């Protein structure tokens, strides 16, 4: 008599927990819009972990609450509980189940990471095309006295081997667009080596294979677009890359995610994902000249609020307004 209701209860609880977990895993609404090829991969994986996690949480939490209520000491009650010290099959069970879960998650995460391009930074084909060009541009900057330029030099001279690289479908191919991204306190400078455009915002065409070569001029910064689910540190002296395809036209925030000084929180700009036609228009309009929409506001913000030296701002503006290497 006792046994049957108990197992029915367990079964019902199991079904309820499973249903709730699946519901939570698919309706949590915790992640922002998906705007890159990588985003759905990450999100699916997160959803799976959230589903498993919710189930585990409900089971453990449920057990705790159930036991605390059921086995609490009632008024006037004396003595000790049942002296149960262990149960080998049970212990083996709850060691094996989590072990299986984490092994599954581990293997799955390697697979996701591979599909994101995480295993192929520094994919060869693009270097032969790109590296010499950007290398030259930076060599021309070298005479400048500041040490930070030397790090930019270092960063651009060697191909990035760290970051998110080509996803399997574009592996071995050169990217459609290469942008050099330099982080500095407290701005991102985007340089387009093939058109000479320098900008404070990132403009890219939708559906095209874009590669960002990240470098840092002063301290570590971290380039993050939440809607792309991609993040990579820009490290002084260590070139890194991010390669991705944006999948949705729109404007998304670019956030600096690594503490880089007092105004780290203000180091924000945006990435504008254009249709290919709009991108061509933007490129034609700005070819040769540098648009730097963020620079005027940068100047105000830096000098008036952020206490950054005027030389630094001058340096940024020099790069922004006059990208031709000879003049630097």
């Amino acid at each position, binding site marked *: 008599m006792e046994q049957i209701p108990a197992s029915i209860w367990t079964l019902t609880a199991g079904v309820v927990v499973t249903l709730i977990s699946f519901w939570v895993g698919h309706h949590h609404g915790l992640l922002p819009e998906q705007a890159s090829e990588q985003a759905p991969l990450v999100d699916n994986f997160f959803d799976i972990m959230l589903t498993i996690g919710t189930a585990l949480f409900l089971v453990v939490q449920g057990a705790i609450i159930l036991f605390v209520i059921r086995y609490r000491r009632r008024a006037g009650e004396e003595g000790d509980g049942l002296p149960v010290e262990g149960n080998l099959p049970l212990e083996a069970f709850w060691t094996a189940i989590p072990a299986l879960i984490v092994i599954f998650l581990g293997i799955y995460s390697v697979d996701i990471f591979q599909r994101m391009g995480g295993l192929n930074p520094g994919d060869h084909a693009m270097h032969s095309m790109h590296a010499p060009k950007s290398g030259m541009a930076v060599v021309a900057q070298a005479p400048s006295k500041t040490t930070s330029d030397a790090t930019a030099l270092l960063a651009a001279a060697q191909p990035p081997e760290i970051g998110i690289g080509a996803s399997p479908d574009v592996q071995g191919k050169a990217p459609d667009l290469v942008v050099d991204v330099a982080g500095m306190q407290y701005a991102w400078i985007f340089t387009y080596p093939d058109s000479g455009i320098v900008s404070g915002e990132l403009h890219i065409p939708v559906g095209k294979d874009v590669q960002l070569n990240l470098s840092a001029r002063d301290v570590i910064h971290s380039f993050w677009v939440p809607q792309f689910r991609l993040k990579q540190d820009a490290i002084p*002296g260590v070139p890194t890359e991010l390669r991705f395809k944006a999948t949705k036209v729109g404007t998304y925030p670019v956030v600096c995610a690594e503490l880089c000084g007092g105004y780290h*929180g203000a180091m924000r700009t945006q990435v504008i994902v254009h249709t290919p036609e709009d991108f061509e228009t933007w490129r034609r309009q700005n070819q040769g000249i540098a648009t730097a929409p963020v620079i005027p506001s940068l100047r105000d913000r830096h000098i008036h609020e952020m206490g950054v030296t005027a030389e630094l701002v001058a340096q940024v503006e020099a790069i922004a307004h006059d990208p031709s290497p000879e003049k630097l």
Partner: protein
Amino acid sequence: MAQAQLPLDTPLSLPEHPKAWKWYDYFTFNVDHKVIGIQYLVTAFIFYLIGGLMAVAMRTELATADSDFLDPNLYNAFLTNHGTIMIFLWVVPAAIGGFGNYLVPLMIGARDMAFPRLNALAFWLNPPAGALLLASFLFGGAQAGWTSYPPLSTMTATTAQSMWILAIILVGTSSILGSVNFIVTIWKMKVPSMRWNQLPLFCWAMLATSLLALVSTPVLAAGLILLLFDINFGTSFYKPDAGGNVVIYQHLFWFYSHPAVYLMILPIFGIMSEVIPVHARKPIFGYQAIAYSSLAICCVGLFVWVHHMFTSGTPPWMRMFFTISTLIVAVPTGVKIFSWVATLWGGKIRLNSAMLFAIGLMSMFVLGGLSGVTLGTAPVDIHVHDTYYVVAHFHYVLFGGSVFGLYAGIYHWFPKMTGRLLDERLGILHFVLTLIGTNLTFLPMHELGLKGMPRRVAMYDPQFEPVNLICTIGAFVLAFSIIPFLINIIWSWNKGKIAGDNPWGGLTLEWTTSSPPLIENWEVLPVVTKGPYDYGIERRQESTDEDHDEEE
């Protein structure tokens, strides 16, 4: 096994036969492990209050999106010192230095630690470290976060940064000295009648903790000394424009600091394994599994540090290797949680403050542990690294998993330490406020991080303002939750109900001496006749003869 006698031969410069300590004994270079334990606990708690004030100031700043309450550089100085103080001057010293020193000799039937003077020295390295951190505010305060990555740390507020480094080296030295002492004490000084499988689980945890600290702390010290040289003496270990590499620092730092989270959590797990069986009136479920899982966590824990560097300068193979090793740590951790939950099953649970905090810890830690699993996988970590999701995760682990455990320990052993009971009504109020405050503050942060709010920012995108406001309100609830606790401690220490030697009916050796214990712990060393968690076993044996009840 004459080692148990060792401290007797050591001439102790102590007063003849005082019944209790005088207040001023706590301000001296006292060599008694109990005095040192309380010195650690009280000092750590004071630092907790200071670190907490910084947190409240930070949360006040974050109530609105603009930087309008604190100057951004001051915000970063608070951020850095809050994190540093909470880890290096609160959780670690309270758990290892405080409970470890107080309890280990009592639990193994020793008269003191193996090296009492070294022990006192280790404690007295802490106050100057705290003073250095606080004094650094006069020089602008260290700005680079508790991780102090170069080049930021070599460029900003260099005097304050050097003071920060010296402070960490002081506490690091303290922890190395303490670890040697614990290992020798546990190894050599337990009473001969105690078998290894009768060693209380807290002592197993301290053993694992000390081994881990011995291996990892010197690496941190080395990394920081190089940083100090870079800042002050013109070397360029971490300066990229002179041939250095900033990523090397991250490896050295995290090789220590990941294990450091286990340094915080293992002793707390030890406290849990003591508190739960006593109040659930049940033998701990899976004694051996709990003891060995501490050692397993300590071994695997040395090979997971790169999960802090997935978005940094990490080659792909490393990201994969460290994803897998990180996930594996979840298994021994899970084993512990399941064992505690199973200990509750069939118990006669006393829901007093100590037990409530212990149960609260289990619930909160499960959530922190699960979000930790998601962070351990490279694909998800790349999205949420350095965001508020991480802040939520580690506060669940550190607040829910460490602070709740420390409170459980305080409610549990306060009667032993002072001879008086804490007031239960205030204790329960304290628990309820803390539980609400912690969840209100840190639960919404998961969403903030996933949606795009980076951490360590004094100003943020206005779309995150409403959720941040909830977190700030929670932080105020947490701040107020301390008040009943403080009143309780101060009032009960003087006027609380007399506890007696063994108010909870515990079976570990510390409950066999008087409360508070004598200067050398026992007149006659105790003899171990039964296991540390044999609750209910005697009753089962004797229930045939007569109704026996070992409760007081």
